[in-house]
C-alpha cells in the first residue's frame, strides 16, 4: 500500500527546502518589512535613479567586455595545449577566490600612479575614482566566472565536429563562427547573464578602485551601503529591492531563453 520511505532522498529534499526556505525568508523580509508608501516615494528619488542608471550601463558594458574576452580565452583553454596553459588558467581563476576588496586593492595599485595607470589616463581612460573604474572593477570581478562557464561549454562540444568542418574546407575562424559558437549558445547566454548579474552586484572592488563617491561612482550596491551609513534605511532598502528585482529579471530571462535554445 505505502511506498517505503527512502530516508536518504527525504533528507536531501528536506535540506533543499530548508535552505531555500531560509533564502526566501531572507529575501522576503526585505519586502515584508518595507513601508510601501516610502518605497514608492524612494523609487522616484533622483539619487536612486542615477545609481540605477549607472549600475545598468556599467554592468551592461562590463558584461559585454567580459564576454568578448571570455569567448576566446575559454576556447583557448578548452581546445589548445600550450606552454603556460595551467598558469593562465590558475591566474585567470584567482579572482574567484579573492575577496573583492583584495582585488580592488590590486587594481588600485596597478592602475593608480603606475606607468600603466598614467598611460591609461593619458589616452582618456583614467580608472581610479572614475566611472570607467567602475567598469574595470566589474570586468575583473566577473571575468573568471564567464571564462569558467565558456570553457566548460566548449569542453562538452565534440571536437570531432570541428575536425569535420576543417576537413570540409572551413578555416579555424569559420569553424568557430559557424560550428562551435552555435553549439555553445546556451553556455553563451548563461555566461552573459551570470556576468551581468555579477557585475551588477560587484561591491568591494568598485568601492576601492572607483571610490564609492555619492553621485559619482555609486552603483546600486554602493548606494545601498552609503545610505545605511547615512542612516537613511528606507532608501537603502529600496536600493536593495531594486537590485533584487533586476537580478531576478536577469535570471528569469535566462531561464526562459535557455528553455527556448
Amino acid at each position, binding site marked *: 500500500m505505502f511506498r517505503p520511505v527512502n530516508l536518504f532522498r527525504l533528507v536531501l529534499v528536506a535540506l533543499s527546502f530548508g535552505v531555500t526556505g531560509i533564502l526566501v525568508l531572507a529575501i522576503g523580509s526585505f519586502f515584508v518589512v518595507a513601508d510601501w508608501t516610502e518605497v514608492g516615494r524612494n523609487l522616484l528619488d533622483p539619487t536612486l535613479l542615477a545609481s540605477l542608471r549607472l549600475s545598468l550601463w556599467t554592468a551592461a558594458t562590463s558584461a559585454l567586455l567580459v564576454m568578448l574576452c571570455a569567448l576566446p580565452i575559454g576556447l583557448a583553454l578548452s581546445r589548445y595545449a600550450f606552454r603556460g596553459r595551467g598558469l593562465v588558467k590558475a591566474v585567470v581563476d584567482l579572482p574567484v577566490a579573492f575577496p573583492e576588496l583584495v582585488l580592488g586593492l590590486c587594481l588600485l595599485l596597478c592602475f593608480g600612479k603606475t606607468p600603466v595607470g598614467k598611460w591609461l589616463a593619458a589616452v582618456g581612460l583614467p580608472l*581610479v575614482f572614475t566611472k570607467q573604474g567602475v567598469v574595470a572593477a566589474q570586468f575583473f570581478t566577473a571575468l573568471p566566472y564567464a571564462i569558467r562557464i565558456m570553457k566548460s561549454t566548449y569542453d562538452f562540444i565534440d571536437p570531432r565536429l570541428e575536425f569535420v568542418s576543417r576537413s570540409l574546407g572551413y578555416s579555424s575562424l569559420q569553424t568557430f563562427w559557424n560550428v562551435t559558437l552555435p553549439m555553445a549558445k546556451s553556455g553563451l547566454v548563461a555566461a552573459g547573464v551570470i556576468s551581468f548579474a555579477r557585475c551588477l552586484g560587484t561591491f568591494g572592488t568598485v568601492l576601492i578602485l572607483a*571610490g564609492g*563617491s555619492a553621485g559619482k561612482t555609486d552603483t546600486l550596491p554602493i548606494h545601498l551601503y*552609503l545610505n*545605511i*551609513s*547615512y*542612516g537613511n*534605511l528606507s532608501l537603502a532598502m529600496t536600493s536593495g529591492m531594486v537590485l533584487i528585482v533586476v537580478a531576478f529579471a536577469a535570471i528569469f530571462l535566462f531561464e526562459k531563453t535557455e528553455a527556448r535554445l
Partner: protein
Amino acid sequence: MRRCFIVLLVVCFWGLSSAFAADLVVYSGAGLMKPMEELRTNFESKHGVTVDIHYGSSGELFGMLKMGQECDILVPGSERYTYDALHNGWIQESSIQKMVKHVPVIAVPKGNPGQIEGLQDFTRNGLKLAMGDPNSPAIGRVGRKIFKKAGIWETVKPNIDVYAPTVNQLLVYVAMEQVDGALIWGDLVTWTEAKGKSGSRFHCRTGQYHQDDSDRLDHVCQGQFLGRKIQCLYQFRVRSGDLDPVGF
C-alpha cells in the same frame, strides 16, 4: 573518507558555535580599530570573556542601531554621534564616558608630491584630494566644517576626487599615493600599515585652525609618549580622567 567528512562537520559546527559566543558586543568607529583591538585583547585576557567588535563608519553604526541591532557599548568616531544616539533614546546619559579626543590632521603621501603645506594649499588647481563623505564618517563631517570655517570649502570641492565612506579608506588612498592629501584622524598616521608611506604635516582643530610646524607635532607626540600606551601609540589625547587600558 567518511570518517574525515564527519570530523570536518563536527569541527565546523564547533567552530560556528564558539564564534557566536561573544559575551560583549561593541560597535566602534572604523578609525578606532587599532586601539580597540588592543583594548579587546587586554580585556579578554584579564576578564576571561569574549568581545565581539563590529567596525564601521559612525553613520553605518547608526544605521545598524536604527535597524534594531543591539550592542553593549557604542564607540562612535565623534561626540556628535554620541549625543545623537542619546537623543534617539538608544543609550543612557549616565553611561556616557568621554574617552579620548580625535585630532584631525592633513595627511600627505611620503615626499609630499602635492607640496601641501597648509589648508590653503588644498585650494590649488590640479591637486587630487580625498575626503571623508560629509554624511558618513565623523572625519567627513569635521573636515567639511574645517574647510567652511576657513572659508575655502567651495574652492576645495573641485579638487576632491573621491569621498570615502570610511576614514580607513582615506588612509589607504594616501598611503598608496593615489591622492595628494586628505584630512584624516591623527592617530591613523601612526598605524603600522602607514609607516613610511605617509607623513602628517600639520594638525588643526575645528573652529581655531592654526598651522603647526613639524617640530610642534613631534613635541605633541613626545608629550603623548609620556601618557598611557594607547594614547602614545596612536596619538589619542586623554579627554578627561585616566583611561584604564584594560577596561572599556
